[in-house]
């Protein structure tokens, strides 16, 4: 009975308009939380891209006569411990933070997807070996491993990206492997073999597009997680170094002056929260949009 209602509800959509992408966008737009997430992310990205135009001051310009001040007309969020404009530093900080989050997610996705594809497609001993290695990586406590890597390589953007990549490729590898194992058994993969497609071609042309949805979802959620990790390491002082600003960095310095100027650590802290939440919201929405079973459930609940 509910099924019937559902199909009537979906009726007005003309068949020509119902391409897959179209449907995903429609469903995303309907998912309010996800929509909010996307708006926030667009805003944050714009902030990072147009930082020089948005920031009221040079983020590195010191004004030692006005240190640790609260909000004033000149400095909307106040100033930091060496009199730099906090608003400008937070705006510029989005560049380092988002860049590190995006790069590390990109690299871990590429590595994880490749490894997951091979493990899922080859199966057997290859799969066993790869998955045990993956398990090993997952066993190590994230923060400890990161601190070790970063202190070995020296603090900075590069080592943060490398260490996050080393940690988070496993998410992609596991998910892709599982999905590939499901898809691998389907008749169209056999049909592709019968066409004379080689193993590599089947992996990249036939299997990969079919597991794209979970990869996109994982990437969105991993982005949030990676920003958290980056902030955590920066908070411990091993992130990007001064004078470059990142949210985690600002949070760390501001933390020492929490009683004097709470905004100093609150502002970057809120930005981190906002970014991570937005990525998670978008991930949720994408999951609903890309997985038809969950989507049906959703409409039913409303």
């Amino acid at each position, binding site marked *: 009975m509910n099924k019937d209602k559902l199909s009537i509800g979906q009726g007005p959509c003309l068949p020509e308009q119902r391409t897959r992408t179209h449907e995903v966008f429609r469903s995303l737009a309907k998912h309010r939380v996800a929509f909010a997430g996307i708006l926030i992310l667009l805003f944050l990205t714009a902030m990072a891209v147009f930082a020089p135009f948005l920031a009221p001051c040079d983020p590195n310009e010191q004004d030692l006569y006005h240190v640790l001040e609260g909000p004033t007309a000149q400095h909307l969020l106040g100033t930091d411990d060496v009199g730099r404009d906090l608003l400008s530093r937070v705006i510029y900080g989005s560049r380092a933070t988002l860049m590190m989050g995006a790069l590390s997610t990109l690299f871990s996705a590429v590595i994880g997807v490749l490894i997951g594809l091979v493990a899922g497609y080859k199966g057997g001993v290859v799969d066993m070996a790869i998955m045990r290695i993956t398990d090993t990586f997952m066993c190590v406590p994230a923060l400890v491993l990161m601190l070790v890597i970063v202190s070995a390589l020296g603090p900075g953007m590069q080592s943060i990206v490398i260490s996050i990549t080393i940690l988070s490729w496993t998410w992609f590898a596991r998910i892709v492997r599982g999905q590939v194992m499901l898809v691998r058994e389907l008749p*169209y993969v056999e*049909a592709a073999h019968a066409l004379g497609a080689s193993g590599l071609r089947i992996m990249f042309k036939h299997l990969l597009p079919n597991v794209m949805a979970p990869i996109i979802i994982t990437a969105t959620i991993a982005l949030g997680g990676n920003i958290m990790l980056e902030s955590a390491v920066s908070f411990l002082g091993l992130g990007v170094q001064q004078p470059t600003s990142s949210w985690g960095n600002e949070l760390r310095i501001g933390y020492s002056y929490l009683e004097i100027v709470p905004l100093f650590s609150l502002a970057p802290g809120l930005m981190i929260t906002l970014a991570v939440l937005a990525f998670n919201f978008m991930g949720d929405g994408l999951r609903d949009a890309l997985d038809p079973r969950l989507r049906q459930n959703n409409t039913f609940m409303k």
Partner: protein
Amino acid sequence: MLLSVRDLSTSFFTENGIIKAVEEVSYDLDEGETLGIVGESGCGKTVSALSIMRLIPFPPGKIVKGEVIFEGRDLLKLSEDEMCDIRGNQIAMIFQEPMTSLNPVLTIGYQVMEPLMLHKGMGRKAAQGDCIELLKDVQIPDAKARAGAYPHEFSGGMRQRAMIAMGLSCNPKLIIADEPTTALDVTIQAELLELMKDLTRGIGTALIIITHNLGVVARYADKVIVMYAGRIIEKALTMDIYRKPRHPYTIGLMESVPRLDQDIKQKLLSIEGQPPDLACLPSGCAFHPRCRYVTDKCSQVTPELREVSDNHEVACWIGD
């Protein structure tokens, strides 16, 4: 001789024991000839076809012995790379389920183009032109626009047309059609088979049709193989097998098909019992527990195929 299959045996090594899915299957096929392989579900029809293409998943499956001579080369001895060159290029396969045999995330056009780009070294542009021609050949209306569509936008019949277009794209010497019309409704079945027959005749392609539909075989095949429990039990020209089936199983199959010329009051016959479990086959002739004419010998010695008349071979002790 285009294809000569000799003593082909394929087994699956499972936890429940060795399943001999195909046992000592031999047959020949000439250029442009059509062979029908008939039998119940699970009698090894599909596995024998997949064995020719070397598409048996290993483990658990393995071709344990035999030869598949295709244009003078034993396919079972080729490397995987050489096999990739042959698959889709010289031997194409059309699968049973048009619903699931097309990749849902790739356009129909791309999937038809793929073998062209793989085997003929065509660029995207050239392949696109050929692809639209192929789609026109299989009578997909508005081929140019439909090439950009995804499989879920096609009906079952249309998808099977697209599958046929994929199969024909490289003008293969041999097409193996594994129950090509089983998943379609009756009106489209005939249409598609006609189409397939016309197109393959046009380019002189040999055809192996795997089916459990005796009507399909009667109409389209030049010769017929009847399989039971992994073995060929009767092999003959189509005319002969319909006029004078020799094996009790073939006779049973014929009787279980309704005919226009039979008496209205006559009951449709069926073959009693179930096909055997391939993991524990009955001794002797695998069909003996269901056979009307069973003798003591049947349960003891497996009958070999022997010629009873020109081009007509039967594996049965009757008439001995």
